[in-house]
């Protein structure tokens, strides 16, 4: 029996119908008002899973919030899980929540589409029916729908109400893509004032003011802002607490048509606004190496934070430190204005006249609708000498400073001396000259050798002729005295020619020389015998036969000597 009961219970749970409901409340709203979308699943046993990415015309402001409800009715358990979102429509007209895919556990369901009609707020006065439902809204307005790029646009959020509000809170500010923003005004309390829209009396309060500076040109959209409004409920006041109900509302979407700035001549750009520029310096007469404060003041209307002067080319004689920038913004004005001071500390490193150039500020004048350049007068400083050595902290020497502002010399148009890249260090010409000089070094030595060689060969030629020459002077026909003296002369001549000398020799000298040269004792003895007879011929007469015989002998001996020499 127990078993049967448990089966019944299981069946009751298992087969009880899962019901999925999708509901929207209210279905008729004004632009910017929120409604609640609820998805609930009964008997599902778990939370439904919904994909809301198909909602193109609505924005999810908050959610999902979950709630669970369980009941026993007549012994049957019903469970209800629901999810709810707060949605705000993105546009006006008859909108549709499309078919939603809802998953509960393993099962999937499809919802029916729901119609939501969004009414235009501007027409609400004509529709008496809507009047009662519309009690409050916020409106976003801009002061200029087609500004120039960089021109300030003031965005104002105003809350309008007809009922007693207990609270107001900004839920979500848009990201303001395409703008440089600055908050101008954000009150902590609502300051409601009477305001008339058509024939209706409203109470209005500015809830926020923003200064927007478009950073690009073209159409830029400002997304709606969403806020939560608490409304006191009538008749439900207790002594201590006033009960209130919260509503989520959103502003309208705005779109700006940002005009591009005309091109500047120099191609640079500056800021937009109305500016004045001035410079201030304490004293024009200072000493070298003394610090000097140079103040640039820009004041006027526009984006004060981004306004800047054009690059300043301080002369190199001045050491320049990073400037200190102070911005003073005028408070409580709709247009951002104020003054910006740029303070440079300058230290002149050289004495003499130093000129601080004129400071230029390029901006787009909104009144004139064209680019303007405002500039200051240049300031001539009279720097007295310090007495101390000039410091080189700029990193430039005096010589280098003198070179500043000079231009390079003009191109060299003379005929270039071409050569090969990486031509060898020692060129062919060098090698040739080197070899020539080495040759020159050996020339004197070679000349000497060749001359002595020449001398030698000349002597041998003469020596070769010595025999013939000495034979030729022999006297064959004559007395013995003549014959023997000719023999002596002939031998002496033979020797002189052989030795390349010019001397007179005695007979003994001749003999010893012959003996030395020929190494033949027999030969020298024979010659000695003839010479001895010649020496003795003046004292002891020699027969003609004998002398003639000696002539023939000496011829043979000379020949023999010539061969042995």
């Amino acid at each position, binding site marked *: 029996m127990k078993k049967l009961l448990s089966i019944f219970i299981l069946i009751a749970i298992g087969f009880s119908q899962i019901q999925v409901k999708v509901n929207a409340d209210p279905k008729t709203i004004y632009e910017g008002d929120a409604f609640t979308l609820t998805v609930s699943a009964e008997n599902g046993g778990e939370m439904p899973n919904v994909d809301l990415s198909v909602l193109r015309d609505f924005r999810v402001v908050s959610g999902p919030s979950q709630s669970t409800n369980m009941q026993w009715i007549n012994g049957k358990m019903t469970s209800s899980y629901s999810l709810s979102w707060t949605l705000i429509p993105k546009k006006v007209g008859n909108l549709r929540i499309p078919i939603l895919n809802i998953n509960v556990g393993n099962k999937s369901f499809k919802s029916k589409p729901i119609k939501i009609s969004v009414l235009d707020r501007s027409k609400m006065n004509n529709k008496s029916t809507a009047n009662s439902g519309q009690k409050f809204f916020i409106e976003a307005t801009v002061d200029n729908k087609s500004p120039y790029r960089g021109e300030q646009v003031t965005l104002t959020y105003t809350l309008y109400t007809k009922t007693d509000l207990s609270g107001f809170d900004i839920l979500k500010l848009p990201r303001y893509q395409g703008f440089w923003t600055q908050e101008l005004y954000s009150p902590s309390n609502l300051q409601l004032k009477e305001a008339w829209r058509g024939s209706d009396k409203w109470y209005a309060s500015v809830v926020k003011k923003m200064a927007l500076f478009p950073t690009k040109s073209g159409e830029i959209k400002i997304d709606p802002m969403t806020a939560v409004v608490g409304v006191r409920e009538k008749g439900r006041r207790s002594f201590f607490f006033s009960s209130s109900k919260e509503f989520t509302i959103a502003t309208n979407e705005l779109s700006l048509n940002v005009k591009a700035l005309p091109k500047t001549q120099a191609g640079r750009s500056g800021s937009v606004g109305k500016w004045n520029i001035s410079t201030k310096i304490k004293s024009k007469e200072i000493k070298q190496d003394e610090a000097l404060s140079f103040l640039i003041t820009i004041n006027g209307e526009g984006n004060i934070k981004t306004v800047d002067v054009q690059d300043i080319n301080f002369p190199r004689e001045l050491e320049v430190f990073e400037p200190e920038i102070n911005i003073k913004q005028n408070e409580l004005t709709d247009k951002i204005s104020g003054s910006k001071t740029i303070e440079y500390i300058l230290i002149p490193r050289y004495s003499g006249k130093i000129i601080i150039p004129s400071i230029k500020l390029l901006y787009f004048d909104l009144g004139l609708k064209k680019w303007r350049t405002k500039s200051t007068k240049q300031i001539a400083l009279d720097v007295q000498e310090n007495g101390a050595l000039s410091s080189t902290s700029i990193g430039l020497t005096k010589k280098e400073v003198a*070179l500043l502002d000079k231009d390079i010399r003009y191109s060299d148009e003379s005929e270039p*001396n*071409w050569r090969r890249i990486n031509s060898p260090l020692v060129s062919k010409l060098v090698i040739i000259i080197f070899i020539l000089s080495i040759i020159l070094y050996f*020339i004197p030595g070679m000349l000497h050798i060749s001359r002595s060689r020449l001398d030698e060969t000349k002597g041998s030629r003469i020596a070769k002729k010595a025999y013939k020459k000495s034979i030729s002077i022999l006297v064959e026909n004559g007395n013995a005295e003549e014959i023997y003296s000719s023999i002596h002369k002939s031998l002496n001549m033979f020797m002189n020619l052989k030795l390349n000398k010019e001397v007179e020799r005695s007979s003994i000298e001749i003999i010893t020389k012959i003996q030395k040269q020929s190494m033949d004792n027999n030969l020298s003895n024979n010659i000695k015998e003839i010479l001895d007879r010649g020496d003795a011929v003046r004292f002891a007469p020699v027969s003609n036969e004998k002398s003639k015989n000696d002539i023939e002998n000496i011829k043979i001996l000379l020949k023999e000597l010539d061969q042995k020499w």
Partner: protein
Amino acid sequence: MVKKISIISILFCFAFGIHPQLIEKYQNGIDSYSNGNYQLAIQEFEDILKHDWESPELYYNLGNAYYRQKLVSGSIWAYEKCLTIFPSHKDAQYNLSLANLNVVDKIDLPDLPIYLKWYETIRNYFSLQNWIKLFVISLFLIMLLMTIRKTLYQNWLKSIENIIIIELILIALLCGHSFLESKSNSEGIIYSPVVIAYSEPNEYSSKIVEVHEGLKVNILDNNEDWVNLELLDGTIGWILKSQIREL
């Protein structure tokens, strides 16, 4: 006049071997420079360099074109190059000092003593190649004088010979110094605007120093992608090869 120059130069080039087309390129570069088309002038001059021909005048004009294009590193490189071939090129010296004003890094060196200054001035009067030429020419002169003296017995030449020998020794020392310096020191100019030198030839090692374009540095070592350099103040670090142009 220009025509005359070009005709002469074409004749010259036949004698020395440079292609007439390169001469034309050079003339084109000069013309573009005077017309203010510095980019084209740079292109033409660099093209000649790519064909392996150089001249001090070319480097000087290339430097001017780079200067006008506000490419500091290029102009410094070209002027330095001009001065290595022709150290006494006055205009290049002047323009180099102007270009150097734009270099961010300034490394101050102490002033040399006066005798070293003189020595350097003399040494920088000619390039090493010209010093070698001078050496060989004076060697030749000595040999010639000696030969004349010995063969023609002109002993009075001996004193002139001695003077030249002293000169020759001085030049030889100078050449030796310059040669050793050129062997051990190759130099380069930083070519990228900002270069970080690392302690090792890779990007993971620690950063040593940041240098800027136009700075002249010594190159100690070379590998495939990296160059080991020494700054004038002695700091040593590695940078990428593409960030430097060798002189």
